[in-house]
């Protein structure tokens, strides 16, 4: 007769009960919600264009200045569908390169934020007591310093941040809210009966946290992270607009917009298209986040 360890048995049972993963639930919910579906499709298209186009066009196409005087500030036409900017660069090409920069900064920094926030919050919530209070007071203090002031401070003190630095900066200033959320969820789950049961069966702390508690945290964190992506796209554009984000000649939607401001009313196409790309993407992300929130019933999160 084979011996089966009791905690393994318990885990297998847990899997059988919650047979659809949070991802499946989320996908199914998205497919039902029409506006969320539209948002998801828009994001998918923009992401595809951002990923595929550089494979077709050379990478530096968006900073190429073929004829610096003759092609300056020309309105949309067949050769330049969205016109050219004050440095005679093709706006469409720059928007596509910008999509890659803006979107990867947003996705990666939110990934950093969600990871750090989840780990930190889970530790605080699981430990409880004085350690929890201390860890959370630190988060309170970090949340009290307005994020934009913090970002401007770091961006300027470490002048000329590379993209990696920017991703880390946005990620490491974005996890405070997530950690508070995770901490609350973990602290309340810690006293649930299924945790007591797992512990009675001899499961270690790490196992309880990883296998039993954290799966319950996934959907709220997913919603918070989706909202965070929209937020970070806006913040990155704002920082770049202030000259503290992505550095020229590299394109991001913020820097393209900034390049267009100088000639704005007469050369409208640079600002309008960069602004449109920014707003449409953020709107699409927020539609998906709204849909996810409804579907996963993560109503404890504030809107946006």
């Amino acid at each position, binding site marked *: 007769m084979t011996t089966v360890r009791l905690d393994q048995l318990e885990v297998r049972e847990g899997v059988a009960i919650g047979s659809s993963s949070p991802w499946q639930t989320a996908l199914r919910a998205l497919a039902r919600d029409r506006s969320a579906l539209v948002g998801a499709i828009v994001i998918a298209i923009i992401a595809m264009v951002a990923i595929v186009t550089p494979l077709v066009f050379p990478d530096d196409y968006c900073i190429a200045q073929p004829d610096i005087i003759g092609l300056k500030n020309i309105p949309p036409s067949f050769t330049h569908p969205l016109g050219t900017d004050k440095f005679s660069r093709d706006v469409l090409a720059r928007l596509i390169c910008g999509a890659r920069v803006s979107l990867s900064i947003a996705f990666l920094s939110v990934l950093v934020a969600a990871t750090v926030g989840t780990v930190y919050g889970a530790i605080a919530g699981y430990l409880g007591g004085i350690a929890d209070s201390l860890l959370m007071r630190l988060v309170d203090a970090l949340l009290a*310093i*307005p*994020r*934009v002031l913090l970002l*401007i*401070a770091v961006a300027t003190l470490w002048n000329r941040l590379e993209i990696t630095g920017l991703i880390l900066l946005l990620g490491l200033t974005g996890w405070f809210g997530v950690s508070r959320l995770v901490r609350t969820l973990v602290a309340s789950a810690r006293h649930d009966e299924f945790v007591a049961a797992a512990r009675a069966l001899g499961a270690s702390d790490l196992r309880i946290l990883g296998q039993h508690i954290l799966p319950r945290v996934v959907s709220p964190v997913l919603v918070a992270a989706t909202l965070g992506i929209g937020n970070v796209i806006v913040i990155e*554009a704002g920082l770049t*607009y202030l000259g503290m984000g992505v550095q020229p000649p590299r394109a991001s939607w913020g820097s393209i917009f900034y390049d267009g401001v100088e000639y704005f009313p007469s050369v409208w196409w640079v600002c309008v298209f960069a602004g449109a790309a920014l*707003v449409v993407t953020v709107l699409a992300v927020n539609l998906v986040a709204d849909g996810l929130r409804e579907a996963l019933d993560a109503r404890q999160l504030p*809107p946006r």
Partner: protein
Amino acid sequence: MRRFLARRLAHGAAVIVIAASLSFALVHLAPGDPFSGSPDGFAIDPETARIRRSEYGLDRPLLQQYLAFMGHLAVGDLGRSIRHGRPVSAVLADALPHTVLLMGTALLLSFAGGVTLGAWQAARRGSRADRVAGTTSLVVVSLPEFWLGLVLLLVFVYKVPILPGGGVVDLMHDSLSPAGKLLDRARHLALPSLTLALLGTATIARYQRAALLDVLPQDFVRTARAKGVAERWVIYRHALRNALLPTIVLAGLSLPTLLGGAVFVEQVFSWPGMGSEAAAAFSARDYPLVVGAALLGAVMVVIGSLITDVLHAAVDPRVRPR
């Protein structure tokens, strides 16, 4: 209530001490200092830099600097701004009223507008009007502050020039009559506060609508309806009161975001508030002013959340600790 207040005050003070230490650490972790020359290659004579460093105490051991900083902070002394050559507190005191005026107006407008719009939507939930308003709010919350600010600037300053495009008062402000002065200030305040208020209204309206829809299925609402109270009255008198609580909390929690938004908006409209002062201090590596601005931001947020908590406890006996 008094003990609750004392606990919250102690908590707020602890948060401020930690925030102060963090901003001190942040500034001193950064490479270079105010006298190591600018990143654009403009250099400072090493001897001058050495003298200036010792003048500002930057050559002392870090721990000693930290203790001195915290000691001065305890008596409200934030040091001297390097850029202005004046005490940091004086520089910030000049900028603070502008920011408070801007944020206060924006908060008031967005609260009034957001609660009204949210309740109006909840009263006709599911209708076409509700959906149009909901979509519009979602579009507005997706807009970057500087973008919205620039669009308003373009429309009301360049296309239909009816409002001034920047600053707090007109050049001729001093020659105006008292009523004219007030009008002049209001006209200058209009666009920056409207930018922030539009975003705030959309955020609060979305939240208010959801909060009302959470309250509507509750028993007391059913009771009111059963008594024959008109549906509009049920929403505006019975449900709204209960649904206001989460909105008050949200308004308090959104203070850091509002302050961050104000930084961009102040830049767009050349509004001489804390945001502009901070951005300038950061690029000049004015350590004391950087720390002071970040700290003042934290203090404002702490005071804001304290007021929120007290308001919340005053309105809702359930959250008052026994």
